[in-house]
């Protein structure tokens, strides 16, 4: 298999039999499959951007605009750093923590899974709650778990992030949330492989 075949597959220019053989090859060769996925994501990303406007494809390079954007990015980073520093100093106890050997201090358990078409989100109990995230995990890799608060206008505020987490089984990854430190509202736990570009899995819940 080569780059030309990747292009043909992504462009939908293979026959059905060729495409099916190509897909089996991808299953047998995960590294090759990752290359193909980048090509698919590049095409999909271009399509999404072009649906907004094609101006980005034809604009001329403008050094002044680039410099202004860079200055704005630096300011944004400084502001984010300042905010993060103050947010951390306000809370010394972990809002989100790994499951340790001593589980006697947890007061309840909540199970989160991706359920298509579910109308209601699970509710988080009071106290220190052990959260079982159900999915398909690789026990040999590290995961990053983030706790986000979801605002009424879909704004997202990341409250805590845990790196280096291991799944306890191929189908369960566990963390502990200190529920008493959360206000009422909608939240989401985001799980993704550490040092990976793969998209995160989102598990929503509510706190009453």
């Amino acid at each position, binding site marked *: 298999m080569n780059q030309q075949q990747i292009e043909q597959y992504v462009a*939908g220019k293979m026959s059905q039999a060729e495409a099916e053989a190509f897909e089996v090859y991808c*299953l047998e060769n*995960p590294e090759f499959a990752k290359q193909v996925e980048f090509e698919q994501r*590049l095409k999909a990303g271009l399509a*999404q951007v072009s649906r907004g406007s094609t101006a980005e494809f034809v*604009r001329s*390079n403008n050094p002044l605009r680039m410099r202004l954007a860079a200055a704005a990015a630096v300011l944004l980073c400084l502001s984010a750093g300042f905010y993060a520093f103050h947010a951390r100093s306000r809370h010394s106890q972990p809002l989100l923590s790994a499951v340790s050997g001593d589980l006697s201090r947890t007061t309840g358990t909540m199970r989160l899974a991706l359920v*298509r078409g579910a109308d209601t989100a699970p509710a988080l109990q009071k106290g220190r709650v052990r959260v079982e995230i159900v999915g398909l995990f690789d026990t*040999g890799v590290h995961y990053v778990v983030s706790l986000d608060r979801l605002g009424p206008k879909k704004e997202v505020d990341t409250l805590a992030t845990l790196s280096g987490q291991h799944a306890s089984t191929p189908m369960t990854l566990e963390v502990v949330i200190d529920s008493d430190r959360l206000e009422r509202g909608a939240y989401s736990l985001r799980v993704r492989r550490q040092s990976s570009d793969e998209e995160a899995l989102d598990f929503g819940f509510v706190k009453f």
Partner: protein
Amino acid sequence: MDFVPGGELTRRIREGDVSAESELIRQFEPGLRVLLRRRTGGDHGLLQDLVQDTLLVVIQRLRGAGIDDPQKLPAFTAQTARNLAIASLRKAERQRTDVDSDLTDRNADPSQGVEGHAEDLEAALAVRALLRELPHARDRLMLKRFYLDDHDKEIICEEMDLSEAAFNQALSRARRQFRQILEERGFSKRDLLSLGL
């Protein structure tokens, strides 16, 4: 080919070896994402669900009855994923309208897929960054014509007065940059919202 022999893997899973299940997931997940991305029309949530569903079905099958020819485990897995994708498309179509078999069959075509509901926003953001970083307007136009307009390389080269080598070089550079942006920067939800994507 870096495939773990199916016979060995299926035997270990049948014997309850949890690490073998992890190996199977690591082995098949990238390929399943390719196969199902093509069939989910950019619906990222559906893609994730179907990858998980497929792996669950395959693992449960291997824990129980197993498959006749373990060497065909990749083909079995691929067909399971295709079947689940088709079932999902049909279910979505039934929910949207009354049963219309012609329409259902059309939408079951792998080349089509459902309309995107939760698109791959990270890819869109990375493309925006890529377009900002590409030094020449010509390169951006070339990407558009190749990926979006599906023009053949030869026609693009001819109309843009490019040699094939220059075209391949520019395309390869853009791919590399895109991959680097996705791998190194990563994007949070906040980035996506702030850019209004």
